[in-house]
């Protein structure tokens, strides 16, 4: 007993000493900007640990690596902190992170993930709250357009730094509209001047008009529309339409509301539009869709804003300067137009609770998401990071890579940005929705049944996780829904 006590007191002294030393270093590192502070913070960390070089382990979806590694190399040169990343498929981040939550092995210090997995990974104990570090490093969060950084928060704490504004945008081909005679022909047929569609009905009409299959082979030369319909992705596109219908996924008691009139109508439109899309769209996500659009094979595409990088790329794109970027279309609800843009992915830098060097990982995250470096990332030729800061609006590098029009429209869309379903069990809720939406798309079940099945599956999930807890999570999330019907 006595011995144990003695041990405790030693431990206590050590703890005090450690606390003292962290208190000493817990001042804001010098530097006028967030990236400078991140660098000096990282240097101080290395000094305190007596290290000259350090390799952080990082998990990253393979699609993001080339866009990220360049800046990481610069950070390594400055601070000695490098990154040893391992890649996973973009839809496997959740699975790998979950397995780490069980393993608690510290095999990676931080990772890039989406907001969908955040609630689960917080509850699983993997995501580390970084409020202390955000305060210390004075991360320049005030520059971020409202709505983005909130996605990295859960139950009042900050768990990550947002690096990406992924609310959808609609790109259409203005050169095709301007082609001789088209405008008149279109107007004669549909009764309005072709241009950015205000509603999904109008987008449908544009898609119908511009689907060109002169030989009647069933394989058009030009497809009228593109959007994602692949397993794991398609539900986001439906959800956006559902939101524009004025739909909400749950009521205050977590009863699913998807199976109502709004849901069914949105799903019918979603399915109807698919007939103007390339046949293989059910297997496509970004890596297939972007080159297809940039190759000039489609009239319009609703997707992530990084489409601009692909479509305006001087070497890889055949449609440079021919694109018009549009506000997301909406629906007329109760006599008023409602536009909704879903935040459909959104890279976030998360720090692991089991990290060997959480602080170093944080400094790198702050560096990557700072005003200056994020602008470079957003403008990069391989970028998957999209503008999410007010300063991106005026940054010449961003404008050069993406056109001024696109950045402005994109950040306008952000005013009517709605989140995905970001509560505990999000991946499962979304998967149930996705599965049923796709079954309806394939004609296996009716739109009504698909959404009824979804609602039933959601009820099951809610009950299993615990209704009371879910109601609280949902209440918190509801605050993130936009109040404006259309952007100013």
């Amino acid at each position, binding site marked *: 007993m006595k011995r144990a006590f003695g041990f405790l007191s030693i431990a206590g002294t050590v703890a005090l000493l450690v606390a003292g030393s962290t208190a000493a270093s817990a001042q804001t590192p010098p530097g006028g900007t967030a990236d400078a502070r991140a660098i000096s913070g990282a240097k101080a960390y290395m000094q305190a640990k007596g290290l000259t070089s350090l390799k952080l382990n990082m998990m990253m979806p393979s699609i993001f690596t080339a866009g990220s590694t360049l800046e990481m190399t610069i950070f390594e040169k400055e601070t000695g902190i490098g990154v040893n990343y391992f890649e996973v498929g973009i*839809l496997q981040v*959740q*699975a*790998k992170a*979950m*397995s780490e*939550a*069980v393993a608690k092995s510290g095999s990676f210090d931080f990772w890039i993930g989406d907001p969908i997995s955040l609630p*689960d990974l917080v*509850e*699983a104990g993997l995501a580390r709250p970084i409020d202390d570090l955000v305060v210390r490093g004075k991360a320049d969060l005030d520059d971020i357009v409202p709505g983005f950084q909130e996605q990295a928060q859960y139950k009042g704490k900050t768990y990550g730094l947002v690096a990406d504004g992924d609310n959808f945008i609609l790109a259409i081909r203005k050169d095709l509209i301007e082609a001789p005679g088209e405008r008149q022909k279109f107007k004669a047929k549909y009764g309005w001047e072709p241009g950015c569609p205000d509603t999904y009905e109008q987008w449908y009409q544009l898609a119908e008009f511009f689907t060109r299959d002169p030989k009647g*082979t*069933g*394989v058009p030369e030009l497809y009228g529309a593109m959007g994602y319909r*692949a*397993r*794991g992705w398609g539900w986001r596109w439906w959800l956006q339409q559902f939101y524009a219908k004025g739909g909400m996924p749950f009521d205050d008691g977590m009863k699913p509301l998807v199976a109502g009139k709004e849901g069914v109508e949105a799903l019918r439109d979603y399915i109807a539009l698919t007939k103007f899309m*390339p*046949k*293989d*769209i*059910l*297997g496509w996500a970004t890596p297939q869709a972007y080159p297809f659009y940039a190759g000039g094979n489609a009239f319009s595409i609703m997707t992530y804003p990084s489409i601009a990088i692909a479509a305006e790329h001087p070497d890889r794109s055949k449609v440079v300067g021919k694109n018009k970027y549009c506000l997301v279309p909406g629906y007329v609800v109760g006599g008023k137009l409602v536009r909704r843009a879903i935040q459909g992915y959104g890279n976030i830098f998360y720090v692991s609770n089991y990290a060997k060097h959480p602080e170093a990982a944080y400094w790198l995250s702050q560096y990557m998401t700072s005003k200056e470096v994020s602008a470079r990332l957003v403008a990069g030729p391989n970028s998957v990071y999209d503008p999410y800061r007010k300063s991106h609006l005026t940054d010449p590098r961003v404008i050069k890579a993406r056109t001024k029009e696109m950045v402005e429209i994109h950040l306008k869309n952000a005013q009517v940005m709605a989140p995905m379903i970001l509560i*505990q*069990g999000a*991946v*499962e809720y979304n*998967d149930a929705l996705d*599965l049923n939406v*796709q*079954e309806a*798309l*394939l004609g*296996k079940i009716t739109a009504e049944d698909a959404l009824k099945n979804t609602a039933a599956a959601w009820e099951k999930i809610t009950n*299993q*996780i615990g209704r009371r807890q879910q109601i609280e999570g949902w209440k918190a999330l509801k605050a993130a829904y936009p109040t404006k019907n259309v952007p100013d």
Partner: protein
Amino acid sequence: MTGLRRWLERERVFRWLPFIPVQGLFALLLFPNFLLLVYLSLLSWRITRGTWWNAAFTGLDSFQRALEDERFLWALARTFGFAAAAVPLELLLGFGLALLCRRHFRGRRFYTTVFLLPMMIVPAVVGYDLSMLLIDQGPFNQLLSLLAGRAITVRWLSEYTPAQLAVIGADVWQWTALTFLIFTSGLAGLPEDPIRAARVMGASRWQIFWHVELPLLKPVIAIAVILRSMEALKIFDYPMLLTQAGPGNATETVAVYLWRVGWEFARVSDAAAMSLVLLVVVAMYSFVAIRVLRRERRRLAEEGVA
């Protein structure tokens, strides 16, 4: 040194020496795992809810959920369906090809070399390779169009039945190589005496095949069925790589679904319960299969003595 030799020389040591590490490996690696699986299945633990060693017992709740989960039952049925479609095809094709390649003729070596190739390719590569062939405007549809004489644009990976056919096709393409190998080995190893005797007695080729060779081959056929069907029930790579288990849930095999439940939905206890259900189903199947195999092998041993 001689002491060690003498020690090894004892029969008891000699015969048990390989047995101990193998059993040890199973006992230390697989058995605790199995216990853990059973333990987890009796909880209602999900990764997002504390730690598993603190989770409370909830009895058979997870099993009830598993058996009420239509998606799980469908995945199970689908997996057996895939196996039931793929394995007989593999056996028939493998057997037919082995028969055709039975005797020496010019080109035999070429054919056998080619036929063995598919099983040497990583299934992940097969999945990827097929995803390249099967695109809408890909070479496979081009070939089909040539053969059919009209344009064929099957959406192999984004329609229900075609996607299922693609997964079955991938399995058949790859593992017919193994059944071919097994049957070729079997045919090559057939004893000559009974066949010669039958021929002397004036039996026709067909009679010899049907009444002499086929019965002799029965055990080999049995092992081919067992090996292939137990591997076919594990299909994971092809759907993951070809279609993300889609479209819809057209190609969601039980392995894929369990992966999702366990790692993506974090419902570990449910995954454990489903795993045990799966294990029971597989065990019932393998019990029967192994009985057949054992009977065949015993009969063989008895005949060998006689």
